[in-house]
């Protein structure tokens, strides 16, 4: 059998190539072996995010912005609003396929994702949009989006005592910061709060949490770096019961949802909480970075499978990202957004407002459309 060597293969390299392929073949042979393999821990840490304690430092040194959260949210909104307004007006003027495309673009550029965007637009498609009042179309869009993302917030009266919240997410999305802000909110309502430093992996994560605990006058349970997170959580839960606190906020280390072993670790943390206090955790919050694209949906799915997520915290909404992927998360997984993070100051965590969110996505028509 005569074989023609592909042109990109240098003949000199053939033995090396063959060896490499042989090695890979070996691996293929091993695949069968894998079927019966045990689930185990995979080596590999996480990229260390060194910056978080600094964010705390910065937030504590800068007094809360004089402008209110709503104002800041509006400011962000205003940036996109005028752009959207002119586009929408132009598209509505042109009508036809351009309009569909323009509306699709507006939604896609907010990370809503093609499936959800098409669903939002599906109802509009049947209407003769050409020549319609842009405001009417906008209002309808807004209504549809609002309807899709509307969900219950955290109950005003906490239905259980203590109220245990487990906070999870990938690296660098703002878990610890969100916990600090939640602690401050609960404290402001006169509830006693205990923070559990379950992130034993990242250097200084517990220190960061301790700063937040100090600022909001909450208790904290922590151990040294590298401790078993489940052990810390066990201690924390025991202590919470003993101290009879109102709210327990459990921090966990950030982990990429693709790392099976770390997700396994998270399951164990959840089981530990349950063991100490049957019925807990009462809330499992998944923290998502608003700049994340459709990947956030994969994150939500995997974390839900592992620890039964009950709600979402959407952070970093103060930048140019709109966090539209939560539409898909609400639609496909039925997970309500509970909180949104709008900056680095303590009061920058707000209950999610579906109407405001929808307005940020498609504009609110307060500005006259530019022709």
């Amino acid at each position: 059998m005569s074989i023609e060597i592909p042109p990109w293969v240098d003949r000199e390299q053939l033995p090396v190539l063959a060896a490499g392929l042989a090695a890979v073949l070996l691996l293929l042979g091993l695949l069968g072996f894998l079927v019966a393999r045990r689930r185990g821990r995979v080596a590999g840490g996480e990229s260390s995010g060194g910056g978080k304690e600094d964010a705390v430092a910065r937030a504590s040194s800068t007094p809360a912005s004089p402008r209110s959260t709503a104002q800041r949210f509006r400011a962000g909104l205003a940036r996109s609003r005028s752009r959207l307004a002119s586009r929408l007006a132009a598209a509505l003027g042109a009508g036809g396929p351009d309009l569909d495309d323009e509306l699709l673009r507006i939604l896609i550029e907010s990370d809503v994702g093609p499936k959800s965007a098409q669903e939002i637009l599906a109802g509009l498609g049947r209407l003769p949009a050409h020549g319609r009042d842009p405001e009417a179309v906008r209002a309808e869009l807004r209504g549809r989006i609002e309807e899709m993302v509307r969900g219950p917030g955290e109950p005003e009266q906490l239905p259980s005592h203590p109220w245990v919240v487990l906070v999870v997410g990938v690296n660098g999305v703002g878990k610890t910061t969100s916990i600090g802000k939640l602690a401050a909110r609960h404290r402001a309502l006169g509830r006693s709060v205990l923070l559990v430093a379950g992130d034993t992996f990242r250097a200084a994560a517990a220190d960061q949490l301790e700063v937040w605990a100090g600022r909001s006058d909450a208790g904290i349970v922590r151990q040294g770096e590298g401790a078993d997170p489940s052990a810390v959580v066990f201690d924390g839960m025991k202590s919470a019961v003993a101290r009879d606190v109102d709210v327990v906020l459990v921090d966990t280390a950030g982990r990429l949802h693709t790392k099976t072993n770390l997700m396994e670790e998270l399951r164990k943390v959840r089981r530990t909480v349950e063991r100490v206090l049957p019925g807990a955790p009462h809330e499992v919050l998944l923290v998502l970075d608003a700049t994340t694209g459709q990947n956030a949906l994969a994150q939500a799915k995997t974390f839900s499978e592992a620890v039964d997520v009950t709600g979402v915290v959407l952070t970093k909404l103060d930048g140019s990202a709109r966090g539209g992927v939560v539409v898909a998360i609400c639609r496909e997984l039925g997970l309500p957004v509970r909180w949104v993070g709008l900056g680095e100051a303590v009061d920058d965590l707000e209950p999610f407002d579906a109407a405001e969110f929808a307005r940020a996505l498609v504009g609110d028509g307060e500005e006259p459309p530019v022709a």
Partner: protein
Amino acid sequence: MFDALSDRLEGVFRKIRGTGRITEANVEEALRDVRMALLEADVNFQVAKDFVDRVKAKAMGQEVLRALSPDQQLVKIVHEELTATMGGAAGKLDLSGEPPAVLMLVGLQGSGKTTTAGKLATLLLGEQRRRRPFLVPLDLARPAAIQQLKTLAAQVGDGCGVYDTPTSGGDPVAIAKAAIEQARVGGYEAVILDTAGRLAIDEDLMAELRRVRDAAKPRQTIFVADAMTGQDAVAVATGFRDGIGIDGIVLTKMEGDARGGAALSIHAVTGKPILFTGVGEKLSALEVFHPERVSSRILGMGDVMSLIEKAEAAYDAKQAEALQKKLRKDEFTLEDFRDQLRAVKKMGSVADLMGMIPGMKKLARGQDMAGADQELARIEAIINSMTRQERRDHLILNASRRKRIATGSGTSVAEVNRFLKQYGQARKVMKSLTRGGPRGLLAQLGMGR
């Protein structure tokens, strides 16, 4: 990476496979699906739209190639356009001119600048370049970032310098100047500036970066971006490009299930080349970005070139010859097996390697590939628990020896048995495959055409 996009595109092409020829109607439909696949992968809206328009124009204008079926034709065009969208040829790191060549890393907080600085230093110091790098922490607002970079410098190894940036106070411009001078005097060939980031682009940051840029006169300014970013990626990249000017891009966190949309959009929008991608936590996990190879991988066509390069890095020619001989003569012992395992480990994760072999991506699907790497470690433990004599002649492994090995490696006798059976089979397969020499191996793999 790109798995989601790969899967979607494969579905699109499968649909068109049954049809006899390319018509406007079936191309139209396929491209609508391609566009949705791109948008789902977080490709920028405009980029996806332009991409599909170009593919359509090409597909319709194309002479019907008899040799290719409609889906092959479309795959070919999509492949070409994907490559072009990502920048065509691979970009280059510019270290020309009088040393030290200054490289300035910019990007948002959490994009992976500091880690990338460490990876770049490793790359520069590595065998192919042998340039001594000097790391300069300039993120003065984050003491931890300074500490992190110093730790990284130590991990990079001898020959990598780091500037002792004070953890409090100081002006980034003055520090950059002093650091570059120190690097020049110290005979370093490259300076890597790890600048400050913010949660979002703001004017303060841009002003600071401009001042650093004007003082440091970087040979290249490199924008570091998180591959998981959605539609915002393009806005951030253009913000940095217009604010301070960038020469190249590094995409980080490509090892997760990042959709790859940023990789497809960011060059198209900024016009700047993607130089590297970060593919893991290890300092060596920085890969040169080859648009053509990446588009092959996206389309499930494998990436044999990269595989060869990885194999070359892991084996030398003498080793390879020796292995060949052993395989042919059926003298492939457990000791050789272990050498292979170690070489493979050097080449990267099993999932990565599989993705580079044409057609293997499909086979690997559904398997937990993280588990595969874990399994390799267990197998190595089993072999490590054997005596040298046992490794050279596995036939002497009786029940009592197996029991000892299981205990020593923290596995069970059943696992040891299973492994030995696998080893026997692998040996057989390898022998038959290598009978024809390297060419025979290629032929067996269906690549010799």
